[in-house]
Structure formats: structure tokens, C-alpha cells
């Protein structure tokens, strides 16, 4: 998964911590997060068609999903990532 951010804005920091929490909770050890700072690599925005910040892009499995916002709505993040909440699944 790639998380696109632009500098150390509060929104981006919130998003990163939220993502970390969700991943640890639901798929511990089975994920990889790549954080891309567009301020440092602006040319990368074109490739994944990034407009909104922060954006989480799930490349695999297909189809590509984009989750925008600070990821504070865990339900929606899980739906967006096509993950079933662990609690309900167990």
C-alpha cells in the first residue's frame, strides 16, 4: 500500500497513524506501507493519479482502490480496502 502525503501536515500525520493502527489491528505482519511525500517527489503524483491528500492507494489485489482523507473512519477504510473487520469475522 502506498500512502501519499504532502509534508508533515496534521492531516497527513493523522492519516499515517490511523493507517498504522488499522493495519496492525486487522492484518498484522501481512502488509507493507510505502509513504510518498509529494513535496519531495512531485512527479509521482501523475502516476497514481493523485489529487487529494492524503490518499491511500491499494495496488494489490486488483482493482486499484483509492482511499482519501485522514482515514479516521475505520469502517470506510476497511470497506475501501475490501477487508472484513476482524472482530466480526471471528
Amino acid at each position, binding site marked *: 500500500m502506498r500512502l501519499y502525503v504532502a509534508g508533515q501536515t496534521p492531516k497527513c500525520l493523522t492519516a499515517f497513524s490511523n493507517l498504522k493502527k488499522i493495519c496492525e489491528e486487522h492484518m498484522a505482519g501481512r502488509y507493507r506501507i510505502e509513504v510518498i511525500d509529494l513535496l519531495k517527489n512531485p512527479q509521482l503524483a*501523475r502516476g497514481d493519479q493523485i*489529487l487529494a491528500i492524503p490518499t491511500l492507494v491499494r495496488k494489490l489485489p486488483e482493482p486499484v482502490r*483509492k482511499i482519501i482523507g485522514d482515514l479516521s*473512519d475505520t469502517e470506510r*477504510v476497511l470497506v475501501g480496502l475490501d477487508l472484513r473487520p476482524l472482530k466480526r469475522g471471528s
Partner: protein
Amino acid sequence: MAKSSGRLGPTRNELPKSPTGIKGLDDVTGGGLPKGRPSLVCGSAGCGKTLFALEFLARGALDHNEPGVFMAFEETAEELTQNVASLGIDLDDLVARGKLVLDHVHIERSEIQQTGEYDLDGLFIRLEHAIDSVKAKRVALDTVEALFAGFPDEMILRAELRRLFRWLKEKGVTAVITAERGEGTLTRHGMEEYVADCVILLDHRVNDQVSTRRLRVVKYRGSLHGTNEYPFLIDDDGITVMPITSLGLDHPAPTERVSTGIERLDFMLGGKGFYRGSSVLVTGGAGTGKSSTGALFVDAACGRGETALYVALEESPHQIKRNMGSIGVNLGRWEKKGLLHFFAARPTAYGLEMHVAVIQKAIEQLNPQVVVIDQVTNLEAVGPTHDVKLALTRMIDFLKSRRITALFTSLLPLADEIDHTDVGISSLMDVWIMLRNVESDGERNRTIYILKSRGMSHSNQAREFILSSRGVELADVYLGPEGVLTGAARAARVGRDKAEALTRRQEVERRRRELESKRAALKAQVVALQAEFEIEEAEVLQSIEEMQLKESVLAEGRSEMARLRGADPDGPTNRRQRNGQEGGASEQNREKAGRAKAGPGRRAGR
């Protein structure tokens, strides 16, 4: 800059402008779009927004050395390149030369899941990166409203857009933002709230199944601008806006004359033809020879080595060339020499404004000295009379300002309505030539009049207009007690006149002969009388002689008697005798004189 100057005080600095390079638009806006500010171009689907934005960038990159960034939210770069290649703009080349960045922003609603607060920094960063990579001065966003479809939270979007436009201003780039037109509003999502410096509205209207594109500058802060709706067209050269009001009534009036191509018509127009730069209207019913007049005019112009444009709204160029061949006018040779150009289009091919625009454009490209438009009545098929008149006024102004002599042909529905041209344009024209069909004795004959010709003496006579394989001839019509006669009636009348003249000549001849013979007869009579007189005279003389003889015999007898009586020979008797003899002679003389007195007439006759 204008903003700061406004704050500083009454420095009347002109608002800096960025020329669009779009023909005509810079006239309307007084120089272009506001430099360093965003402008909004709105309009409904298919009215040319994307093309407008692209042309703005391409012209800037090519002509003004201002690189640009095109951010497309709807079409991909490949699609855009293909779309404008037909307009002669090579986007690939511009991109390769580092003059242009094409960035396609793909937004797929289904891929996006919103999970909280976000902003559009990604877009900003992309745009900034693109701008910085080519040092762009111009930016186009086409159409930014696509964001509304892709992102769910409108509140955030609106705030972000507001930030985007402010940011663009700060960047100092001249931006064109396109937006879809909404119901009752300029744009569907109220974009005009954010971009308020310059708003241009594009419109694509269909009237009577004919479409016309129009452009209007709705708003232009800090600058004067044309407020009308200007028709514009999209063709091989991109967008062309036709400013309506940029033409005034201050065109020069040349005194040079040009031939009409018909010798006798020149003669009717003060002997020299039309003024250069004048507008000529040729009206007439069907088949009165309007096109032929136009073709002859063109033929004469090309013969002088001038360039001519024949705008055919009715017939195809081939048809015109063939038909004019039948009256001995070979237009094909001028076309081959490059002097004559045809421009043919069906009136219904596009709207009225478009027609005018297209014709004007053709004229601008060719720069001819002579233009024939055959025929303007057809334009009525695509616009109301009022509009046609306006359009033609503009056309005439345009032609006059370029010193082009123009001949318009117009169809008159009925020959009786002399003062009525269906588009009411006669008052705009300098010369009005009327062609009429005169029907009589089972035939129709063409006549030609000059109804008006400003600024020159012209003939008030009607002429018969004869089209033959040798060309056009103008013949005098027959004017007589029976009225104006043309064609066969004229020929018959002329024949009859000839016969009458012959008869009259014969009559004179006869009279003269009669007189001769009378004189001869009289002469003979005189001779006869003379002869008679001579006979009479001879007789009379003879009788006189006889009488004298008798007298002398008597006198001799008396003297013999006296001698016998023994009278003194030297006596008075003798003397008397001598006297008597003398008296007799004098008597004879007297008689002669008397006769002479009586007969002077006879003697004169001799």
C-alpha cells in the same frame, strides 16, 4: 498588478493582457485575457471550450513564447492531440520542445473512498510541478468541474477550488478554466463565484436547424470590452471570432473606375463603369442574367490582372464555368492562372453569421480586388431578414474598408416589385442594376435598367439585354407610340419601320420621276408652240410683204397716172409722192413694232 495600482491610487495603468492569439477575440477584449489571472470560459457541451483553452495555450507557446500547462480532466493527452491535429496544431511537437505539458487527470468515482478530511494538495503539487517544469505562463484546466463528479464532499471541494484559483493568481499564470453551463446559471457548479476576473460565455445555438456559435464576454474586471454576442467559427485554423462592431462608416471613397465587363453598361454608367470599392446590387427575377452579369464582371477584372473571388451560394463552380462558357465567358482560364477563386457553399451548410465569417475569412486570405456574391437571397434561408441585412451591412463595410468592388446578385420574386428587394439591402448599395423579364407576344425578353448609381451620371434608358454565345449585348429597345418593344416584337417593329422607310423612299423617287416627265412634256409643248408660232409668223410676214407689194404697185400706178396727166415732176405732187412712199414704209415699221409689242411672251418662249 492592476489590483495594486488600484490600491495605490489613480494611476491609470492599462490592465496587462495576455493575447489569446484567437483571431478576433483580442479585438473584442482589447488585447486578450487578463494577464496573471484566471479566466472562466463556460458553455454547453460541444461549444468549443476545450478548443478555446487549447488554442490559447498553443498560440501562446508558438507566437508569444509563453509555455503552457494543459490539465485535462476529461480527455487523455492522446485524444487531445488527435482532436486538434486537424486544426493544424501539433501538440506532440510542442510537448517535445518543452513548450507544453499535457496532464490528464483521471478521476474514477468508484475507485475513491472518502474516509475523513482531505485536501487537494496532490492536484496543487502536480500542477506546480508541471508549471515549474516548463516555466509555464499559461495554464488551462479543462474542465475542473469533473472534480465534483469524483469527490464526494462538496464543501471541501469548494474551499479547495477557491484556494486553487487564489494560488494560480499568486503563481502569476494566466489561466483558462472551462466549465459546463448550468440551468439558468453560467456554470453548473457556480464556478463564476471563484473566477471572477473575466468570464467568457460560449454558445452554440440552433435556429431553424442551422447552428451558430456565439461568444460573449460576460464580464471583464478592470477593462473595457465588447459586450455583444459575437459569432465565431471553428475551422481548419481554429477559432475565429467575428467582431461585429469593429467596423465603422469611415471607409475611403476612391474615384477610380472599374469596368463592368459589358461595354454598353459602362457607357450607361457615365462611360466608365463602377467606382472601385463600391457595392453593386444586381436584382432580377429567375433567369434574367444575374449570374451572367456577375461572371462578366469577374471576367473583366481578371482580364485586367486583378484577383477575384466568386462566392457561389447556388451553383457549384463547375456548373458556373460550364454555364458561362455558353455565353462565351471562359472563367476556367482565370482559375488556372490563379486570378479567380471560387468559394462555394450551400446557404444551409452553416448559419448566417458563420457564412459571413467564412466569406470574410476567404476574402482576408485571398485579398481580392473584386468579389461577386451570387446570390444573397439564399442567405435568407438561414436567417431572418433583419439578420441578413445586418450581416450584409457588415459584409459591405468590410468590403469597402478593403476597397473591394463587390457585386451582389439578388433574386426578385416578382418583376413588378421594383422597390422591394427581399432582404431590404438596396439602400446599402451604391449601384443598383435591375434586370427584368418583359413578357410580350408569347416571349420573354431581358431588359436592363440602372435604378441608381451614386455619384455619377447614368443613363435612364432601358436596354435590351441579349445573351448569346458571343457574350452579352445591350441593344436599344424600341421606343415608339406602341411603348417599349423588345425581342421579336422589336425586330418586327424595326423590320416594319424599314419597310415603311423603303416605301417612303420609293414614293419620293416616283414623285421625282413624275416631275421629270412633266417637265419633259412641258418642254415638248413649248417646242410645238414655238413651231406653230414660227409658221404663223412666216405667214404673217408673207402677207405683209404681199400687202406692201400691192401698195407699191398702187403707188406706181398713181404716179404713172400723174405722169400721164402731165403733172410737174418736180412739183409738190412729186414731193408728196416721195413722202407717201416714205409714209408707207413708216406704216410698215409701225405695224412691225405693234406686233413686237404683242408677242413678247412668245418670243421669250423661244
